[in-house]
């Protein structure tokens, strides 16, 4: 039995309009892991995330944070949201204040921290994301990518143990996406558990250590990235694709250029090493 920071067992959520978004979904997030939640549009990723943060309340099923069933009492919700931070896909939903400083301090102040403490935390986060120069800028002047970083900073300032990010790199330019991933790498190294949703299979394959595929409000499969991506047919069935790295590795393996399993090639660097090794041999 692993150490699960959050666990969903058979949760169902139906929107007031009658649409069933989650239909008996299971998900386990191990402490210290990097989990990618994959799935087609409308497969329930965002609804799941809103449930994991206590914003939507599943009509049935069980949700446990740190092994304890959740409670929706105000005090417990606050503690839950301090532990589990969520970054929305649309930064405009999350960036509430007019200046960056005010916005990042919003969460810490809601936790009841003093003004000085909130200001200090905001300064720390700005420093660690290397966006100190944003400090006094009005939020409406920031670009979409910059606003996304501010949204992430606002969540990190609450010092969560688990951060859930809904499509953190969508709509952000390549340099911005890289910056977001670097930030995630940094906080993961500091011990934060991460869950992201994405349509970018290449990024998910290189970045995550676990993956879950959602289809129609249920978990199609969850496991180590290499296992989940191994089944091509399953991927296609979920309206997803194999990452290019895996495809190339498979091709090289079929031609006998690479002898190790295709799944061992998890990064571009590794691929190049293998190719160089194959040439020498």
């Amino acid at each position, binding site marked *: 039995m692993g150490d699960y920071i959050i666990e969903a067992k058979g949760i169902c959520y139906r929107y007031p309009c009658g649409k069933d978004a989650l239909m008996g979904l299971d998900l386990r997030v191990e402490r210290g892991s990097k989990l990618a939640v994959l799935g087609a549009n409308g497969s329930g990723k965002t609804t799941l995330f809103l449930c994991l943060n206590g914003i939507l309340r599943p009509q049935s099923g069980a949700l446990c944070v740190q092994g304890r069933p959740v409670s929706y009492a105000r005090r417990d919700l606050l503690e839950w949201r301090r532990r589990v*931070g969520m970054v929305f896909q649309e930064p405009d939903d999350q960036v509430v204040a007019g200046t960056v400083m005010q916005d990042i301090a919003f969460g810490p102040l809601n936790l009841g921290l003093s003004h000085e403490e909130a200001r200090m935390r905001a300064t720390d986060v700005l420093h660690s994301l290397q966006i100190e120069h944003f400090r006094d800028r009005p*939020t*409406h002047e920031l670009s979409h990518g910059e606003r996304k970083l501010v949204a992430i900073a*606002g*969540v990190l300032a609450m010092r969560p143990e688990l951060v859930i990010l809904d499509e953190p790199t969508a709509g952000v330019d390549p340099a911005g996406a890289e910056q977001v991933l670097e930030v995630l790498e940094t906080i993961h190294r500091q011990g934060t558990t991460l869950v992201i949703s994405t349509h970018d299979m290449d990024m998910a394959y290189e970045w995550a250590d676990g993956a879950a595929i959602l289809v129609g409000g249920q978990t199609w499969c969850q496991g180590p990235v290499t296992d989940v991506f191994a089944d091509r047919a399953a991927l296609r069935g979920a309206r997803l694709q194999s990452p290019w790295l895996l495809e190339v590795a498979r091709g090289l393996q079929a031609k006998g250029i690479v002898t190790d399993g295709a799944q061992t090639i998890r990064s571009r660097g590794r691929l190049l090493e293998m190719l160089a090794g194959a040439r020498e041999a």
Partner: protein
Amino acid sequence: MHLIDCYAYTNRWQTRHPAEKAAFAGGLLALSLILPLAGSLVVLAVVSAVTLGGARVPPRVYLRTLAIPLVFIAVGSLSLLLSVSFGAQGVHVGLATDQMARATRLLGRAVAAASCLCFLGLTTPALDWLPLLRRLRVPSVIVDIMFVVYRLLFVFIERLAAMHTAHEARLGYASVRSTFRSSGLIGANLLVFALKRARGMEMGMAARGFGPEIPVLPLECKPSRAVMAAVVLVWLVVAVIGLAVQRWFDG
């Protein structure tokens, strides 16, 4: 809107404490209403000089901002000059020359008062008001609404611009008829967008532990005593000069 906001963040006095600027503008606004016409004109001169020379707002921007209320003020003052009478020969519209003094006084006061507000708008970022208002114990509902409105204003402007461009790209404004139709569509879509955004923001704020009221960080600086004293001095000087000029003019 964008123009005012832009200068509020870039003028030389952006970082001065809002209480200093509010005292300056508020005091002179009161004086422009209390003092006779000459006093209002002195207020207008002082505020204009301070906005242009002190805060270094470009004259073009200042005049453009002042021009907006000026239109309404002009219409209001001119209407005082018209006299309408219903006689045996029907409706008679004439110029009420006896109202000239009243109209000028109204014009002078209103322009001076508007210039004080323009000074505030152009020198003080709207968000600086929030900590100040919270400090002054303004009911939290009002401060919360200001907080959210200011943020959403820009979200909506962005959306409005995007929709306008999209309509333009499909010839939405090619004729009067299509202009009406496009504008109607924009209005309807903006309403739906606003409701959706409100729901999204509600969730976004909930995810960040939003409680009974929106927390606002206090300003890091304090109003300077010297500046406050100088502001009071300016009030007195303006009042004295205003009254003296009026006496000289009358006598």
